[in-house]
């Protein structure tokens, strides 16, 4: 069974983040990778080496654009200077869409440079939906929002994150970057079922997957992107594939970044999930049991409509 994404964006295969420590390896070996994803802020407004190297790499690879500073949920005005630079980059690499996070990074003219969580309320949903429409109209490509890793829940939260995202993507007509690790991290931190999240997310809105490692501190998990993808997350990724079919997938490794080959091996492991039942062949029963063990958290009322 599979669910087509609404735009008919093709499955581009398996990619990895383009990081400075790997530049020389890439430029020397031109390794077999389906695409690279860049953090747009590292290239926007730069006329130096970063953009020069990006132009070289974009000649040989597809480039996915991923941002961390759009601040789509902020109650400050939309930053059109930022959007202009982003649009230039979209044109440069001929991107079909651009992704960022469901979050806000600052208000009152300040920027915390963190991905701060949105309250899951009707007011917030309407606010973000309005802004997504404005942003998409300006950029002229779909905006694809990523489910963030979150470490707190607002007292006024009214709905589950998956219901929020489903309502948002429908009302604003935008896409969804389903970060499988983030689903796991937030489910661990907030005690909801990661499997239910993936089962209930609007499949036709999902155009892209992220995978990464994290740091488990016992009572909470932090999304550190500094390690291998854990078995439980591979199992969830397999669940995504079984439900949705193939989606472009990338592995993020952003701290303590190992040699190119190590990250590449994780990318290939993702590819392996498409050709075998990873939950049986790699993970075994214990991972699936551990996933189930975190399912006993509080539940949210579902079904919220906006507009």
């Amino acid at each position, binding site marked *: 069974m599979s669910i087509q994404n609404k735009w008919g964006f093709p499955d581009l295969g398996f990619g990895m*983040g383009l*990081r*400075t420590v790997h530049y020389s390896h890439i430029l020397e070996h031109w390794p077999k990778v389906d695409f690279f994803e860049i*953090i747009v*802020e*590292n290239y*926007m*407004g*730069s*006329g*130096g*080496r*970063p953009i*020069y190297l990006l132009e070289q790499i974009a000649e040989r690879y597809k480039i996915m654009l991923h941002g*961390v500073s759009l601040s789509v949920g902020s*109650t400050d005005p939309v930053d059109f200077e*930022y959007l202009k630079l982003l649009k230039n980059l979209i044109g440069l690499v001929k991107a079909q869409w651009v992704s960022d*996070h469901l979050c806000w990074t*600052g*208000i*009152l*003219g*300040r*920027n*915390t*440079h*963190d991905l*701060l969580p949105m309250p899951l*309320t009707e*007011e*917030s949903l309407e606010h973000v939906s309005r802004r997504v429409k404005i942003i998409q109209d300006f950029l002229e490509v779909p905006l694809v929002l*990523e489910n963030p*890793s979150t*470490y*707190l*829940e*607002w*007292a*006024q*939260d009214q709905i589950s994150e998956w219901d929020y995202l489903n309502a948002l993507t429908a009302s604003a007509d935008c896409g969804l970057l389903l970060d499988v690790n983030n689903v796991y991290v937030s489910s*661990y*931190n*907030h*005690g909801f079922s990661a499997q239910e999240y993936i089962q209930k997310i609007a499949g036709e809105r999902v155009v892209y997957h992220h995978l*990464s490692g994290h*740091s488990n*501190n*016992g*009572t*909470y998990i*932090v*999304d*550190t*992107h*500094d390690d291998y993808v854990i078995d439980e997350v591979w199992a969830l990724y397999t669940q995504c594939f079984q439900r949705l079919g193939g989606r472009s997938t990338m592995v*993020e490794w*952003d*701290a303590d970044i190992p040699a190119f080959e190590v990250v590449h091996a994780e990318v290939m492991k993702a590819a392996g999930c498409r050709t075998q039942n990873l939950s049986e062949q790699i993970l075994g029963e214990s991972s699936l049991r551990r996933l189930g063990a975190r399912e006993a*958290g*509080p539940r949210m009322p579902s079904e919220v409509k906006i507009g």
Partner: protein
Amino acid sequence: MAEREVVSNAKGAVLPSRSPAPVRREVRETGIQTLREQQAWLQNVVTCVPGRLVEAMSNTPQFIKEGYGLDPESRLWIYRGMFPIRMVESLQVDFPGVAYALGAEVFEELVMNYVEEHPSSSWTLNHLGLHFPAYLAKMKSRQRIFLHHLALLELNLAQVFDEPEVSALTPERLQTLSAGDWENLVLEPRPTSRLLKFDYPVSHYLHQVDNDLEPRRPAKAYQRVLILRKGFQMNRVILPEGGYFILKELFAGKKLAKAIDKLVTRYPEVGPTELQRWFHQWGDWGIFRAPG
């Protein structure tokens, strides 16, 4: 210099080993907070200076739910703990010399006070350090001029790294100019060329820091530095007095002939051979913008 790289939404935050500062649990009767109020509250908790944290967090239960494994205050601390790390790391990338000169503890405290006065207002952390040299100049410290000049050098290096690449005036092109051309020639610097004068040998100091040579604060001594980027490589050149003088005139938009006249008057020891050598070298380094 180190290349700054923002990396996705990765967090390195860990909860503090000690319990967070005690918070007032006085919950007042309130209505529903607006999204704006929720964001203003969380931003204040995340970014305020330590002295204001207890007050900032006093009404946490009104805003944050009890967690699955953590209480509301501990959940906040994951965000709160990450903020200083991000700010310090960012300025450490751009100002490694200042960070070394001050030592980790003092640098961290200074950064947080600086950020309180000059919070980031941009989507990029590249602009966070714009006011840092001026902030250091206001320090109550005997080191302040040294630190100010060191930070100026580092800020200019960070800025030149990202400047756009424009065509350079080559030595070959210079040689094709006629005598008439020379008379009225204005040599404009490329955006990747910067000219700086310091009261301390901060370029030497930074070189030693970059090479883990553990330098001590140097004695006062003027240093004239040309920053240039060639083939996307960052370079620093120490200039002689005369070389700095004429480049300063040229970078200010003076005509070449007039700049040379002033140089010869001020520094009669600079002969035509040396001047020719300088221009050949500067042309080779591509410090001037190609005309047109």
